């Protein structure tokens, strides 16, 4: 590997560590950002890229380590603090006020005022239009932000960051909602900023974009920096290798068992997006009893939305769903649960658990009717027995099932959500990112449980954005991108490069049409 040129370093992270309650998000990272260059950051979801950038932008403070700006140690207490030092960031989640106009958004907190006469709206609109024109956005600065499609909202966010006249500009997945033409314009603007000496940090999952625009590249895995190089010296294979690493995680070995007949089929599932286009784009897939189907895709690929359609959470979705040989006509969640579908939601806190209830009450929440006598009296005996069984089956570490569910670790909370779903006796289990936010030991438990359930004849669909996971756990792999399934392949034939490539294919095809 060639030496990395020193370049003109503006900001340096020196041995920085960030710890959240119990989770180490970034471990002893050293990172240098160069002036007049595009510094690319890449890694899987949860690798710590965003955390790293949030520390530079003043949103988070490092638990350990120093931030050096032009050689001097600095401390940012708030994003405003960082902005004062010339650091601007476009966040992955848009931070715009939908109820205000584009100009008001761009100049929020630093309005152009004319003394006591208040805000100079005309000047703001003029200045805002200037930045928008630079981006060829085709948006009037007087439009309400909520009336814009998501891609244009992203452009507004970028215009806002440019208007700050920053020395360091951080772009966290800026192209996730942009069309190919808009991406080209963005890259042109990035080129201009680069020429002005701005240090740009660019985070993206789309490898071909990184290769096109990057100067320096840093790869993160599990909170650690695993590779740093000049982009001109490397290829996508190198990136994938550094992203995945070689040390195998503790995956359950697949038990050989015969697959049964078709247990689940989805035909032509579509879901319109609020801002236009399809969040789920004519997805059809079939799973056999005892089969584990891994759905790989990046954030926003439509995996969660697909699962929610299957569970009947979206009244506007179209398409047909079969469990066994029978079509499910009912459109509401309770009926679909009764017909043998169950979902482990991605967001455990918001959609999986009722925090104020005990471990026991959470476990039985979805299957209370089964535990009643005379149809209305919850039988204490039956409930206790069911709870004991679930706790043993899933090896949930619960000292007392009557404790609040929030008193347990994330991994055990996840097991409770799984236990709740299993108590409804499903035939098809949908698991949305089942390993998200849980520790290694609990992950291994969850994976073992998945294999065991498959062995017992359950059809399992799980989504993940962890390549290693999808390769190790699935019998078959489906790749989703931009709402479409772009590839379905047996595990034996799949390679990591194939999957990574398919994961951005959905965007390419729109490029051809565009």
């Amino acid at each position: 590997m060639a030496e990395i040129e020193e370049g003109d370093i503006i900001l340096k992270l020196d041995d920085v560590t960030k710890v959240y309650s119990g989770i180490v998000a970034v471990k002893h990272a050293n990172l240098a950002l160069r002036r007049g260059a595009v510094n690319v950051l890449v890694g899987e979801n949860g690798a710590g890229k965003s955390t790293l950038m949030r520390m530079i932008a003043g949103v988070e403070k490092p638990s350990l380590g120093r931030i050096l700006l032009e050689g001097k140690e600095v401390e940012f207490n708030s994003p405003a603090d960082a902005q004062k030092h010339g650091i601007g960031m476009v966040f992955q989640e848009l931070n715009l006020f939908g109820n205000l106009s584009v100009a008001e958004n761009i100049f929020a907190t630093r309005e152009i005022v004319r003394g006591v006469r208040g805000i100079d709206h005309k000047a703001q609109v003029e200045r805002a239009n200037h930045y928008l024109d630079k981006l060829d956005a085709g948006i009037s600065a007087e439009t309400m932000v909520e009336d814009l499609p998501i891609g244009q909202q992203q452009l507004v966010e970028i215009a806002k960051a440019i208007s700050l006249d920053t020395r360091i500009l951080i772009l966290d997945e800026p192209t996730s909602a942009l069309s190919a033409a808009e991406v080209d314009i963005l890259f042109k603007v990035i080129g201009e900023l680069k020429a002005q000496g701005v240090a740009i940090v660019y985070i993206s999952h789309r490898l071909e974009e990184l290769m096109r625009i990057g100067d320096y590249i840093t790869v993160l895995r599990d909170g650690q920096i695993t590779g740093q190089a000049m982009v001109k010296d490397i290829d996508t294979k190198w990136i994938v290798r550094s992203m995945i690493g070689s040390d195998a995680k503790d995956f359950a070995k697949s038990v050989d068992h015969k697959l049964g007949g078709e247990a689940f089929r989805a035909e032509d599932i579509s879901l319109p997006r609020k801002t236009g286009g399809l969040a789920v784009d004519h997805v059809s897939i079939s799973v056999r009893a005892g089969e584990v189907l891994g759905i790989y895709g990046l954030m926003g690929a439509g995996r969660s939305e697909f699962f929610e359609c299957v569970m009947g959470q979206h009244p506007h979705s179209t398409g047909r769903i079969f469990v066994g040989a029978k079509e499910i006509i009912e459109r509401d969640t309770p009926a679909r649960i009764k017909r043998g579908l169950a979902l482990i939601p991605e967001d455990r806190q918001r959609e999986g658990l009722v925090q104020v209830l005990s471990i026991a009450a959470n476990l039985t929440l979805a299957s209370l009717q089964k535990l009643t006598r005379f149809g209305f009296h919850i039988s204490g005996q039956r409930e206790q027995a069911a709870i004991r069984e679930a706790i043993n089956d899933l090896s949930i570490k619960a000292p007392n099932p009557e404790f609040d569910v929030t008193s347990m670790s994330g991994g055990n909370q996840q097991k409770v959500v799984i236990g709740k779903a299993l108590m409804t006796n499903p035939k098809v289990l949908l698991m949305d990112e089942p390993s998200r936010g849980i520790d290694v030991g609990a992950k291994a438990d969850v994976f073992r449980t998945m294999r065991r359930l498959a062995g017992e004849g359950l059809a399992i669909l799980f989504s993940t954005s962890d390549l290693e996971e999808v390769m190790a756990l699935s019998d078959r792999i489906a790749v989703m991108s931009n709402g479409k399934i772009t590839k379905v392949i047996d595990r034996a034939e799949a390679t990591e490069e194939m999957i990574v490539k398919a994961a951005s294919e959905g965007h390419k095809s729109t490029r051809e049409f565009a």
Partner: protein
Amino acid sequence: MTTVTTTQNAQAGDGGSMLLTLMKLRTFIALFAVIAFFSIFAPNFLSTANIILMSKHVALNAFLAMGMTFVIITGGIDLSVGSIVGLCGMVAGGLILHGIDLQIGYTVYFNIVEVAIITLLVGVAIGAVNGLLITKLNVAPFIATLGTLYVARGFALLSSDGQTFPNLVGNPDLGTTGFAFLGSGRIFGLPVSVWILVVVALAAAYIAKYTPIGRQIFAVGGNERAARMSGIKVDRVKMFVYMFSGFCAAIVGIVISSELMASHPATGNSFELNAIAAAVLGGTSMSGGRGTIGGTIIGAFVIGILSDGLVMMGVSSFWQMVIKGIVIIVAVVVDQAQRRLQQRVALMQLAKKD
């Protein structure tokens, strides 16, 4: 060094749990405090006659507060209960006095049991309207029930042109006598309304603890999205709580008319505020998910005894309002402190384990 820190931690933990137990029992402590205070300072406070009188006052608020508790646990609010009390009182009074005119020369009169059932159904129906507004038309509970508050009160006033239905003794020929039993009758020395309270309270406590709908009420209030994802019919649960609240309000309407042997359309004005106060005092969390029927009953007793006791001591009614307000605020402050302490103690226990 290590030993010192561990013992310190242990002490802090024990002190914390002691304080926590005290805080959890705060409604009981408040109840005993008001009883002790007034038995010393208010003459005749502990006389049988006074206790029975107070229990009748408390019962009225307790009914409303129970219905309110379920509603608040789902994360909603029911402002219309006071008006339902008024309207249901008028319905019961009107049925006894005038019956239903069929417009073809006949008038149907009902016996007291039928009158009570019809009145209860009216209460449940208004609750159902609240529920439909909130679930099907997506109106915020505060606004929906504020609307029915006005509508129900308006109908109560319209029903008699603002007049009172007096003298509800009924007519023996029409079989409409016996209404007084509910308000002033006694069974084993206790007022009938108190017996009804015992039955309804036991039923409500049973629903909360041993039935699927009860568990679902807590789940909906704790995390509506997760409840939906778990296949709970959230709309049905909400319908139930508002209908139950309407049912409780209808009971109060009947009991008050029976006690006075007259129905006045302005009856029940601002009762909803007392009901909310009792529920909150009993540990019901306004953000949903927490609360007990037992706590609410005790809360109703604290408020009822406080106001009756202050009257007996001759405290001005203006000061009574000030005192009631302070008690409610203190109760919620302590509630918040308890929640924080509980989290601290739980964290400390976790840390000790590791």
